[in-house]
């Protein structure tokens, strides 16, 4: 009697494609950022998940220098980020922003993004933090 492997191959191929696509999606949203730890950081409210815009802010070698803004793995300058927020907010009134910044980034660069959110009417902002370590 021979074992019919065809159904097993079908299932395995589906799983394989699922994990390949999921890996890519997770990578796109979460660029490697050195987040500060916070004990009270929780998962984003599920009601806000679908309408979120993740803005990554990666510090330059000199913390006083302008950082790199990354949205969907695309490097942008400050003006482009503000324009993108305005466009996305115009298309989706429920838009909320998740800010992921390196811990050494100066607040002035975060405030520029917040000012852009405020001008576009985006009120819900979430600040990302690491959950594993403990706050000093």
């Amino acid at each position, binding site marked *: 009697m021979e074992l019919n492997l065809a159904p097993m191959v079908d299932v395995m191929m589906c799983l394989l494609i699922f994990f390949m696509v999921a890996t890519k999606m997770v990578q796109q949203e979460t660029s490697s950022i050195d987040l500060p730890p916070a004990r009270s950081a929780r998962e984003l409210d599920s009601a806000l998940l679908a309408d979120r815009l993740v803005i990554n802010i990666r510090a330059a070698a000199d913390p006083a220098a302008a950082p790199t803004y990354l949205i969907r793995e695309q490097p942008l300058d400050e003006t482009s980020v503000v324009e993108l927020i305005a466009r996305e907010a115009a298309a989706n009134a429920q838009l909320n922003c998740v800010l992921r910044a390196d811990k050494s980034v*100066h607040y002035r660069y975060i405030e520029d993004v917040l000012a852009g959110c405020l001008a576009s009417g985006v009120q819900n902002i979430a600040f990302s933090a690491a959950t594993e370590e403990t706050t000093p």
Partner: protein
Amino acid sequence: MMRSKMHRARRPSGPSIPNLAPMVDVVMVILIFFMLGTSFALSEGVLPSQLPAQVGPGGAASVSIVPQVRIALVTREASAQCRILVMGKELSEEGFEALYAFLVQKVEAGADPAGRVLLAVDPVIRYEDVVYAMDACVRAGMPNVQLVVGPGEIAAAHQP
């Protein structure tokens, strides 16, 4: 002798079925790699916050809400260290644990936990200090933290 035996080996008469076993082996290895490589449970969370609401055409005027607590993170002269001012006064002890202790005391003294905490931050303060301040507020039971945007608002937050 052997040659004659090989010639005598019978061949299957029907269509040949490909052997799927090596393919299954390879696909299994790739599948396990991607399963282990994909991390859905990220080791990060978020601290939610709200920006002030704006009213009027184009958001001309901001809605003013009297906050329960005003916190300002300012820099020390000649260093990048962070000073914490609460209602315009510097805390007697340094660090974010002192801020946490102050807020816990305030909640225990009857402050409304749903009240707004206004957080004003100097431009050269680092992101980690902003997160520590927000973390202290949330842990103390005052989760409604509102960040101040704009220099005029920051000056107001420094007032007692």
